[in-house]
């Protein structure tokens, strides 16, 4: 681990009493007249790997964006470590969906990672040499330091995802919000990302990730939020990630997760019929 990242761990909000990483109260979000999130009440613990799970169109991305202040809720509020997002901005890192940006943008991998530092620099101040060095260290942590000067469109999907993760590391945050960090990456990258998330957790950071692969939820995460417009359930994996709750989240469309069918499901991982939207409007996942 590099020294600057290590420093951020100790100079972070450590020392204070453990309070919830995220508190969400009565949150309702709508696009036009269509509600996307309905009256969500939620507390997410600090220092855990937390999965947000639900069918397409369940409002998972919207939920993240609302927490990050990118979407204004109709009602309700969000607190991050006991304060509003604006006051906690520097404690939070965000990894958007890979498709949300134009990878043909004329810039290099290390440049994109340096953007993670922009928030600390504030308006007008330019990244300096040591900022670039930090960016290179973060690229090294995700295993692609050799690609630092590559134009970003020349990176594979998995490498692009790693660049995004490195950028989040460069933000040196306490809480990491990730929108489908495992989407469309190969098995090697998936393992690399997982061990990175676990390392973050071991440093006391909180990771909140939208996750699509039901088969790996229990293996990868400590805590789960089951969302389908409304909050279906949230809590530690063992108590919450149950067949009954999954049924309630995915409606009748989910094959019963008994031990016998689990192997079958595993074989069909990625089967789109598992991820059909049920009630809520399509389009905003």
């Amino acid at each position, binding site marked *: 681990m590099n020294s600057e990242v290590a420093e951020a761990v100790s100079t972070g909000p450590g020392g204070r009493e453990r309070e919830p990483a995220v508190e969400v109260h009565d949150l309702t979000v709508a*696009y*036009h007249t269509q509600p996307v999130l309905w009256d969500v009440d939620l507390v997410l613990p600090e220092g855990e790997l937390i999965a947000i799970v639900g069918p397409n169109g369940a409002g998972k991305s919207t939920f993240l*964006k609302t927490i*990050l*202040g*990118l979407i204004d809720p109709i009602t309700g509020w969000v607190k991050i470590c006991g304060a509003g997002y*604006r006051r906690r*901005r520097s404690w*939070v890192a*965000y990894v*958007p969906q890979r498709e*949300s*940006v*134009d990878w043909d*943008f*004329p*810039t*290099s991998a290390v440049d*994109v990672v340096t*953007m993670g530092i*922009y*928030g600390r*620099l*504030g*308006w*007008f101040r*330019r*990244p300096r040499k040591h900022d670039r060095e930090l960016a290179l260290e973060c690229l090294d942590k995700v295993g692609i330091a050799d690609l630092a000067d590559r*134009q970003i469109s020349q990176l594979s999907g998995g490498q692009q995802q790693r660049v995004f993760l490195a*950028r989040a590391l460069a933000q040196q945050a306490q809480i990491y919000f990730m929108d489908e960090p495992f989407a469309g990456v190969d098995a090697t990258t998936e393992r690399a990302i997982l061990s990175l998330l676990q390392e973050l957790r071991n440093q006391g950071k909180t990771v909140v990730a939208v996750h699509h692969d039901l088969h790996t939820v229990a293996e990868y995460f400590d805590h789960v939020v089951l969302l389908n417009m409304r909050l279906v359930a949230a809590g530690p994996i063992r108590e919450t990630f149950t067949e009954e709750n999954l049924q309630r989240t995915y409606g009748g469309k989910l094959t019963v997760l008994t031990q016998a069918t689990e192997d079958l499901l595993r074989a069909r991982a990625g089967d789109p019929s598992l991820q059909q939207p049920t009630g809520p409007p399509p389009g905003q996942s």
Partner: protein
Amino acid sequence: MSSTLVILLVGGCVAASCALLGCFLVLRKMALMGDAISHAVLPGIVIAFLLAGDRSTLPMVLGASVLGVITVFLVEIGTRSRRLQEDASIGVVFPALFSIGVILISRYAGQVDLDLECVLYGEIAYTPLDLLYWGDRVLGPRALWINGSILIAVAAFLFAFYKELKISTFDPALAAALGFSPVLLHYLLMTMLSITIVGAFESVGAILVVAMLVVPAATAYLLTERLATMLALSTALGVASSTVGYFLARVLDASIAGSMAVVAGIFFATAFLFSPSHGLVAKAARHRRLGLGMAEQLLMLHIGQSSEPRSGQVSRGCEIDTLERRFNWRPSKLQKVAKRLERQGWLDRVQEGRLMLTAAGAEALERTGQAPLTHALQAED
């Protein structure tokens, strides 16, 4: 100052300001926005003209900026309604505003020393005649002062907000999450654009300002993979288009603004064809190389597999006739691929009509056999 120099300087300033801002328009996929604003500021200019009673610069710049921001605002309202895509929204807003300007000009033609012809096409040839005075002192050509100041303002704006513009263009969501308001930056950029367009009006006209905004930036985008380089290249291309265009116009005895845009277009077409990274020619060559590399791999794999020495026998390689049937390639293609492999020392003609892997070839196949295309892809770098 000679009039040629004045024209070149004015043209260069206009082209540079447009080319710099144009990079961000192109990267934000908002090239049409330049088109829209360049037309929509017309009523602002006319109203400023009517209120001020003369062609003083400040009211015109103010009027244009206000209209520029109004345009952006209206387009955003349209887009946000979710019933209009951005292009449709732009297409609704700018003709409406532009036609208001046209009506104002024709209605008050008597009072306004501003004709449509001039607004649409500009007349850079007259810029040396229109001088700016400070009391009794002649400061120099008005257009040069205006466009020079605008260029300095644009350069200062981009320098100050470079990092902010970069992040809000690449990843607006992250920019917003980090506290760099993409909306504020968008309006700032559009205001600078409106101001630039007013300056460009007199020299290249409303229609051709679009060419200066989009074409040099789009050309630069084909030539580089770094934002800073793109800005520099775009500026250089803009200034070069305007300079070369001026002399072309003198040679052809044709419209100066038109010639400038034509030269910009020629630069673009050249880059489109011959850019080393994105040009059609380079792409075709790359495609061909990749295809050949693939064919080499296939051939080696096939020969390697089918000529493995069976027990006791010495391998005799593969017959060319069999290979031709197997791959269904043109004989010339097979010959070409085989020759390329022979040159690399991976393939040998054991006897007439038979091909065999050399020891080095077998080794190379062993190395790349796991991922047959890696070799071809590595040749890309």
